[in-house]
């Protein structure tokens, strides 16, 4: 059973492949988890763009989010690394074989906490990788601790309040040199799909921060439908080990408008979709815009910044056209005369 997709079956893409080819194994994430919706959009995007699955390498760290590469593109190569260190693994692999199309999936904990160092340097290098943060403001897999992207004021199950300013990974990415920076919401099928398709065409780091609700642990105080509420307000459920089933949250809204999304726990998310004529090529303007919306408590969504001409790390290193991994010994082991020259110089 593959991840269901919104694209009707039967159709094939320009490679003649059916959408099933782009699916992965059955998800083991919670029902209603935003991460699942993102996997579906990845399936759609690679299908619609007609990418050969075997050309793709999937990377991830550790977390619920980082599990998702198993749930899309079963026909692609996958490397599920250690916590927070996906960027270095991806960098090495993409240098070793420049023909790979790299897509990395990380979480806000995986990227924002333990992995922020590698994040910073991957962005700076503009490594050609689609880097998706499935951003739920918490640590899902370890059961709901606060992550660095948690909103100021969000509350842990045990009452701990997030009292530090949230990290804005998009702002950082733009500051640091990523050449494609976008933000979306897991439930905005159309926008997310469009962004992913654009990212597939871009050569350089594509940082896509996707707000993605954790239905099980994201628990905002005061919410009337939060898990804490369910637990503490004498509903008949009463078992802390019970994970309720939720449906996906979806949203559709127009460019230039703001949508209010209600999360499973009752909290709200304000999304502002950039206007259709927004020109995302001016770094300073993008940064100002992000800051602007953040001050208003809104998330600007869409492609926030893009520099199509920025040289990627592979370009910078001036690599040969063939994958380094494929070079035969004749091209990687210098001849006898080279060794002899060197030896002579040391005599």
């Amino acid at each position: 059973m593959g991840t269901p997709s919104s694209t009707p079956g039967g159709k094939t893409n320009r490679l003649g492949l059916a959408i099933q080819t782009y699916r992965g194994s059955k998800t083991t994430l919670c029902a209603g988890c935003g991460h699942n919706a993102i996997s579906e959009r990845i399936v759609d995007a690679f299908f619609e763009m007609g990418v050969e699955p075997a050309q793709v390498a999937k990377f991830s760290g550790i977390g619920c989010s980082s599990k998702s590469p198993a749930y899309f593109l079963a026909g692609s190569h996958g490397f599920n690394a250690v916590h927070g260190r996906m960027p270095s693994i991806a960098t090495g692999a993409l240098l070793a074989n420049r023909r790979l199309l790299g897509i990395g999936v990380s979480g806000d904990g995986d990227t924002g906490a333990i992995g922020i160092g590698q994040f910073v340097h991957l962005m700076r290098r503009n490594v050609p990788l689609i880097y998706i943060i499935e951003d739920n403001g918490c640590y899902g897999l370890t059961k709901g601790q606060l992550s660095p992207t948690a909103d100021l004021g969000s509350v842990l199950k045990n009452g701990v309040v997030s009292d530090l300013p949230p990290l804005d990974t998009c702002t950082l990415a733009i500051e640091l040199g990523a050449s494609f920076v976008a933000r979306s919401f897991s439930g905005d099928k159309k926008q997310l799909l469009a962004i992913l398709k654009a990212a597939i065409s871009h050569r350089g780091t594509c940082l896509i921060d996707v707000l993605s609700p954790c239905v099980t642990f994201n628990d905002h105080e005061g919410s009337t439908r939060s898990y804490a509420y369910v637990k503490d307000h004498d509903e008949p459920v009463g078992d802390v080990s019970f994970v309720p089933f939720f449906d996906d949250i979806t949203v559709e809204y127009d460019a230039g408008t703001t949508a209010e999304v209600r999360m499973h726990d009752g909290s709200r998310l304000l999304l502002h979709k950039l206007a259709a004529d927004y020109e995302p090529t001016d770094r300073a303007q993008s940064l100002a815009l992000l800051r602007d919306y953040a001050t208003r408590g809104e998330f600007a969504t869409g492609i926030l910044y893009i520099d199509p001409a920025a040289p990627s790390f592979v370009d910078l290193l001036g690599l040969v056209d063939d994958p380094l991994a494929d070079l035969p010994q004749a091209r990687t082991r210098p001849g006898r005369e080279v060794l002899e020259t060197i030896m002579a110089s040391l005599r």
Partner: protein
Amino acid sequence: MIPSDVAPSMAPAAARDALILNDCSIQVATVNGSGSQTANLVLIRSIFQMGVPVSGKNLFPSNIAGLPTWYTIRANARGFIGRKKEIDVLVAMNPETARDDVLALPPGAVTLCDESLGVHDLRDDLVTYVVPFDALVASIAPDARLRRLVRNMVYDGVLSTLLGIERDEMRRALERQLGRKPRALELNLRALDAGAEFAQASLVKRDPYGIRRMDATAGKILIEGNAAAALGCLMAGVTVVAWYPITPSSSLCETLIDYLETYRRDASTGKATYAVVQAEDEIAALGMVIGAGWAGARAMTSTSGPGISLMAEFTGLGYYAEVPAVIFDVQRVGPSTGLPTRTAQGDIASAAGLSHGDARHPLLLPHSVEECYAFAIRAFDLAERLQTPVFVLSDLDLGMNTWMADPFPYPEVPQDRGKVLTRDDLARLDGWGRYKDVDGDGIARRTRPLDGLPPTFTRGSGHNEMGGYSEKPDDYVRNVDRLSRKFETARGLVPAPEVDTVEGAALGIIAFGTSHWGVAESRDQLARERGIATSYLRLRAYPFADAVEAFIAAHARVYVVEQNRDGQLFGLMRAELDPALTARLRSVRHYNGLPLDARTVTDVILSHEEPR
């Protein structure tokens, strides 16, 4: 130069009449950053060019300029070029340490010093030569700044006369260094002459040391271990290098970069057949190497102790997910920052089992620049054959110091890329599984992305033979048991120990890496001074070959000599080998940051063998 100025005893013939020929240690004590490298290299090179076995060791502080530093040359006709515990000839150039330097000398040693240092009459049991450096340099270099620079060449000149090092060889060596800088060359040549002529004119030879031409270095090269390892990587065909600077390993990757730039650009396009990344830290460096190894590149990194600690988690991933990687550890004194510019063999225990959980890694243990080169090549073959991280444990003494060697042979064995599945293989195998042990050697077949073969999903979490995610107890056990089997396979693939069994010797010695040099000379001391014959096993890799147990079994007592406090190799052997045999082991440890010297080994062994 008026012939009559030459004191009769200082004629070249005098040096030739020296009592102790081609066996001495010369130490130059100077200040970091004061520019003595040229003078020291000329000194070692000229001895080398005279055919005398020689080595040069730089003992430098962990800063850039202004602190004491010592350069030590060991010349020995019989090839014992490890550190000698005693200094025979001291060139005192550093006012700050001159007093201590002189006080530390053994009786009878030679000092060459400036009058202004005030150390020439500190002791009357030394042979002291006073050299008026200021006056000599003033006569050649008018500019004060230049004087500081050529000052060092003056002691070369003095030594040339005193020890009989041929001045022509010094000139050749100097030309080699400064050939492209005529003015520098000219000035330095003048300083050399000034020193030599001063000595001829004013010093009376009273010491026993001399260097005389012989023929033990013909065709040989001089090189540092890090450069040799870099050459090995170049010839191995490395394609991805990710590193983070750290003393004493930096020069390995830096030299490699130079070689790659020069010799590994595509002939037609000028493009690079390699990628080098200066990573943000050691964690990222190893991550890149593992990512690259996974994608099929020959990838390496180099580091030292603190980097090894930081690489623990990724090494475990490489082991468990079975990804080739080559890691050079140029060891320095730990733990923590420790003594960053001093040598040790203190990472063998942590490297062997690096990672939480159960993990074991092959270690290659070069003792010479030849082996730095050869083992670098071998490490890539082993890493790909075994699909696992392979460590090459060098050390500061080997990596950063200058060693003599036979020219390195061109690698005749083609690259071993290991069990990489081809389409044909796939057709032949029934039901390929990424982690299936088809051959019984614990090594499964892997695919590489874009080879057009079925993709794999690689992970550091539990997986079954098919490469699928699994938490099943049996899958886990089957998998890690196979990894143990693979390690057994490694035992047969890594470089075998070099064994020198001496008929009738009751004693054996086991050592690895640079401890070899002290041990080799110590065996000679034990034999010559006490008539004690010893056999010797030089370990060249971990896991231990069966020959190790056989060697122990053949001797009543076996000394395990190493450069760390805790006897790490000794401990590993006791942990893994038959206790009936390990009961025969004795631990000899040296861990003050200086390269191991023969006398220390001899003394410890004698304290056991001939207790008072």
